[in-house]
Structure formats: C-alpha cells, structure tokens
C-alpha cells in the first residue's frame, strides 16, 4: 500500500519537474518536427532509429570509443611522444614487458613489479569490497525496511556521502586518519598513543576498503531496499503466524526474493571496485610503500603523471584491465539473462 502511494506521488513530482524543463524546449521541438516527418517518410522507422541514436553515438564515438581504439594503437608503440604519429611501432613489446616475470607466483620477479603488485592489491580490494559492501548495505537496508520512526531521514543519513566527490571523500578521511586527526584525538582521550593509520600497511588497506564502502554504500542500500519493499508483506505475516524464527525468515524468504537486486549490486560493486582510483589517490597516494597501489593509479602514473611518461605501457595495462572488465560484463549479462529466463518480476 505504502509502496503504491509513494510511487504515484513520485510520478507526479517527476512530471511537474519535467513539465517546467520542457517549456522552452516545446517550441523548438515543434519546429524540428517538420523536417523529421520528411526523414521518416524517406527512410522509414529504421532511419528514425538511426536519427535517435546518432547524437549520442557520435559523441560517444568521438570521446569514448575513439580514445579506446587509439589506446589500443598506443599499446603497440613505444617512446614518450604524445601523438600517435610520432610514436614508434614496437608490436607486442609492451605486453611482453608486462608479462616478463621469472616466477609468476611472485610479482617481485617481474620486470614491471609494480603493475603486478597493483593487480594483486586490486584483486584483494575487489574481494573485500564486494563482500563487505554487500554485507553492510544489506544490513542497513534490512534495518531501514523496518517500521521505523523518520525512515526517510535515516535513509538520507546513509545516502549522504554518495553525493560527495571522490576528492572530498579522500580529503575528509585523510583529515580524520592522519596523525593530528579525529581518530587519534579520540584515542588520545583514552590514553592511547597517536598512530599514523595510513602509514600502516594493513590499516591503510583497510581504510581504502572502509572509505569506499562509506562513500558508496548508500546507493546500494537503496537498490536493495527497493527489492525488500517489493517482497509481499503477507509472506512475512504468514511466517510470523507460524512462529518462524527471524533468521529463518531471512534465509528462506528475504534472501531468495532479493537475489535479483543483489546480483545487480554485486556486479556494480565489482566494476566500481576494479576501477577504484580517485578517493584512494587522495587518501593514501598508493602508500605505504605500494600497499594501496591499484591498477588504475598505476596506469595513470605510468601514462600521464610520471616525469618520463610511457603511454604505451600504460595503454597495454589498460587494455588488459579492459579485458577483465569485459569478462565481468559478459558474466553480468549471462546472469541477468538467466534471471530473465526464470521469469523474474520484471
């Protein structure tokens, strides 16, 4: 019931907002219509599809796809020059340099040891991030789904950091975890010596995981919450009548019905975790040592920020990373397809 009334009120707000935005556009739209009718007559519906797709694909092609292909070309060239035309073709040299290891189990034996350290760190980060993010978001969503006083307030509390920029997120936490920070101040009050959290390998790594959970959990909580609210209430009521224990209700009713939403969350968290960069760059800069150096930072520093840039090597690393991400996408598509086949709600 509550679900329905919310849905309509939100539709109304959306429409009135849309209405206002449309006013200046309305005139232009009418003017555009005439030539388009001609296009439609001449090229049919297929032509219109191309027309609708064109602006987005054009911008997308120039600013996303083209760089991607140039990047591929970069990965086959060497030297420090910026423009492709000034660069020397080296074939697969950059790739073989990345894979040049005497012992594949130990990144320290590789020519590009920092790349493999970064890969290892990213792997750990992804595993920790996905499990903890799911756990934290799920618990929060379960709690927010209860019959709470001021529920929208609490929902907002957990959502707030999603709106902050990664730079600000990094800065805020750096300011808390540094020597003169709030955390040390609190511990100092209990008689502990100040600890430089971000200079301790394990704490720094934990901080990167924790901070990105802090920054993004609100978003995933909302997705899970949407799923929770779609679970029919009578299922719970029936369970309560039977006197089923809370944990059992959770594992038998909530979790299975929540699966589709959880899958979306898992994939989104996974992709974001592989790409992690901005907030960590501000927070730890990859340190201490290389313990929070992640792949994106390696690529950024090698290709752009280093005094002697090596765009070719960076490009090769980014192509490898892209491959991993494409595999993840395919997994996502496969999962959502099998979900559709099972005849999920939508």
């Amino acid at each position, binding site marked *: 019931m509550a679900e329905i009334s919310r849905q309509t009120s939100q539709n109304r707000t959306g429409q009135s907002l849309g209405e206002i935005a449309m006013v200046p556009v309305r005139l232009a739209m009418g003017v555009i219509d005439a030539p388009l009718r001609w296009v439609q007559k001449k090229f049919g519906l297929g032509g219109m599809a191309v027309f609708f797709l064109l602006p987005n694909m054009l911008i997308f092609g120039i600013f996303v796809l083209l760089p991607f292909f140039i990047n591929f070309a970069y990965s086959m060239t060497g030297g420090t020059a910026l423009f492709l035309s000034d660069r020397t073709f080296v074939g697969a040299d950059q790739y073989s340099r990345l894979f040049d290891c005497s012992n594949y189990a130990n990144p320290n034996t590789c020519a590009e040891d920092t790349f493999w350290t970064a890969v290892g760190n990213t792997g750990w980060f992804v595993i920790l991030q996905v499990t903890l993010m799911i756990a934290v978001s799920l618990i929060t969503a379960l709690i927010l789904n209860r019959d709470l006083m001021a529920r929208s307030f609490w929902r907002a509390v957990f959502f707030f950091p999603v709106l902050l920029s990664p730079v600000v997120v990094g800065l805020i936490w750096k300011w808390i975890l540094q020597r003169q920070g709030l955390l040390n101040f609190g511990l100092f009050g209990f008689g502990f010596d100040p600890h430089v959290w971000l200079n301790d390998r394990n704490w720094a790594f934990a901080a990167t995981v924790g901070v990105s959970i802090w920054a993004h959990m609100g978003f995933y909580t909302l997705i899970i919450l*949407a799923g929770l609210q779609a679970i029919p209430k009578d299922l719970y009521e029936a369970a309560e009548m039977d006197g089923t224990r809370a944990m059992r209700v959770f594992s038998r009713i909530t979790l299975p019905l929540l699966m589709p939403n959880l899958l979306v969350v898992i994939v989104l968290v996974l992709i974001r975790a592989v790409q992690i960069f901005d907030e960590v760059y501000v927070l730890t800069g990859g340190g201490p040592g290389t313990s929070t150096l992640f792949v994106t930072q390696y690529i950024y520093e090698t290709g752009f920020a280093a005094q002697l840039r090596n765009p070719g090597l960076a490009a090769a690393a980014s192509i490898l990373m892209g491959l991993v991400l494409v595999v993840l996408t395919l997994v996502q598509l496969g999962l959502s397809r099998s979900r559709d086949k099972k005849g999920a709600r939508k």
Partner: protein
Amino acid sequence: MSRAIEFVFRRRGGKGWHWTDIVTWVWLIVGLFVMFGPAVWLTASSFKSPAALAEFPPTILPYVTQKVTVEGYDKPLDLYTATLEDGSTATLAEVRRIGTVSQMVYPEKPAEIVKVNIAKRTPVRQMSFATENYTEPFTHFDFVRYLWNSVFVTVTATLITLVVNSMAAFALSKYEFRGRTFAMLLILATLMVPLSVIMVPLYSIVSALGLFNNLWGVILPTVATPTGVFILRQYMLTIPDELLDAARMDKASEWQIYWRIILPLTAPALAVLAIFSVVWRWNDFLWPLIVLSRKELYTLQVGLSIYSGELNVQWHFILAMTVVTMIPVVLVFLFLQRFITTGIAGTGLK
C-alpha cells in the same frame, strides 16, 4: 515526553525489546555519527588557523592563544597560565622566551619580569574562527567566475546528457533494427572504462579538436554517459508498446511520440539521471584540471586545487574551499533527498 520516546523507540509488534530492535538502534546511531561526523569534522577544521591545523592533540573547535596588550610593549603578548616557584599559579604575559626559560610579566604590572620554565606554562586559549580561510580566497580569486563556470558546465552537460541519452535510449528500447544488440553491448562495455585509463588518447583528441582550454572540452566528453542510456532504456522498456502503436494510428510522427509520450512517461527516471548528472558534473575534478588551465575558465573544483604547491600545501584554504564546494551538494541533498532516494528505487535500477 515519555510518550514521544516511546513513539521514537516503537518496537517491532510492540512485544517488548527484541534483539533486532537493539541492533537496529545501535546501527542507526553509529551510522549517524560515522556518516555525518567526518563532514562535520572537516567543516570544523576549516575554521582553524594554519598553526592550529598542525597541532596535536587537535581541538574540536578552533582555539588560538589569547593575547593581551601590555603597557610598554608594541605588540600584544601571549597569555599563559604559569606555575610559579612557590607552587601557585598565575596568569602571565610572555615577553620573550630564551631557550627553555620564558620571561613573563603580570599584565597589570609590566615592569616586573618573572622567569618561568617553559614546561611550567600553558597558554590561555580562546575560541576564534579563522574566517580569513574563506574570505581571502574570495578576495584574491575570481570566485564568482569559477562559480559561473561550474554552473555553466553542470547545467549544459546535464541538459545535453538528458537529450542525447533519452533519444538513444528510445531507439534502443522501442525500435527493432540491425545492430541494436551490438550498440547496446558497446555502450555497456564502455560503462566500465574509467576516464583515468583513456586520459592520454582523450587528451590528444580534445586538443586536436581545438577544445583545449575551452569549457566544451569539459562538457562534451562526459555527456554520452553509458549509465544514463542504461537507466533510461531500462525504464522505457516498461512503457507498453501499445501506447506507441495507438499514437501511430493517430498519425503522430516518431519525433512526436518521443517527446509527447516517451519523455513525459520517463520523467521519474530522467529526473534521477538529471540529479546524478548535476552531482557528477559538479564534482568532476581530474578532467577539468587537465583541460582548463586558464583562470577565467576554472571551475570551482579546479580553483580549489591551486593551493597545492610544490613544497607546501595550504591546507587551511583547501579545507575552507572544499566546504564551499560541498554547500550546493548539501543543498541538493536537503531539498531533494526524499525525491532522490525514492527515485532510485523507482527507476530501472531494480
């Protein structure tokens, strides 16, 4: 009052405290502090002087050493509480310090010098907000200009995003054509390419197009967001095709169908995308930093970064300016939070 408390802590089914009630409230209260605390701490820190920022242990509120004007001395002197040799304490003003010995005077009797070991004196402190952290950047730098650039980039990019993304989403959800799956896959695949990875090629393209040092160089690369297309397409898929067919029977053109039927029905998803786009573009940092190196083109986020020097970072300014850039986001949040949070739940993100 007790009824209010009872109401706030209303329990599940009203059958006494269940362990989940305790977990709930502990989680919520801890969450409140963890989520808001850091931003509050940042704001409190932004009012501290450079010296107070470097201090350990830090104070929650900004304090400075109290100063007092003493007859016979040109400058105001620092006030200290000192433990004297006889064990009594007194409030003294420090004239100078030589090594470990501080020469102090009673503010009311400036002639008589008292020597105190520096370990035996603590400064008298008073609260003082370093508002110059805010005012100085405003006077030295063209804040209004940065603000305007930020607004221009944010609004233009969001409008273009809404138009081109919704058009593409319409084509991808409501037309059958060759290459549709391919186009969708292409868009999805790039959903995962972070900007920092294609920076160098993107830079060479923007530079070749003459968009370097141009606000359009910031706007255009960001507007064809795969996320936007994805969200809108998912939402449009739920619009029944019968609506379109009925309109076609009434001789409506495809363009009219798009903006008279599809757009209004997609409004909730468009609104969510609009809000996200505004927040993303407002928060963009790295790319504007690369493209814009003329001060009349700086956005707020870029303007904020100029306080990082080679050898010294002026944290007091950076913190203050960070708070300033956070204000619009917080405002968006305050006024639209209900809408955002329900909107996300309502769109195709399910």
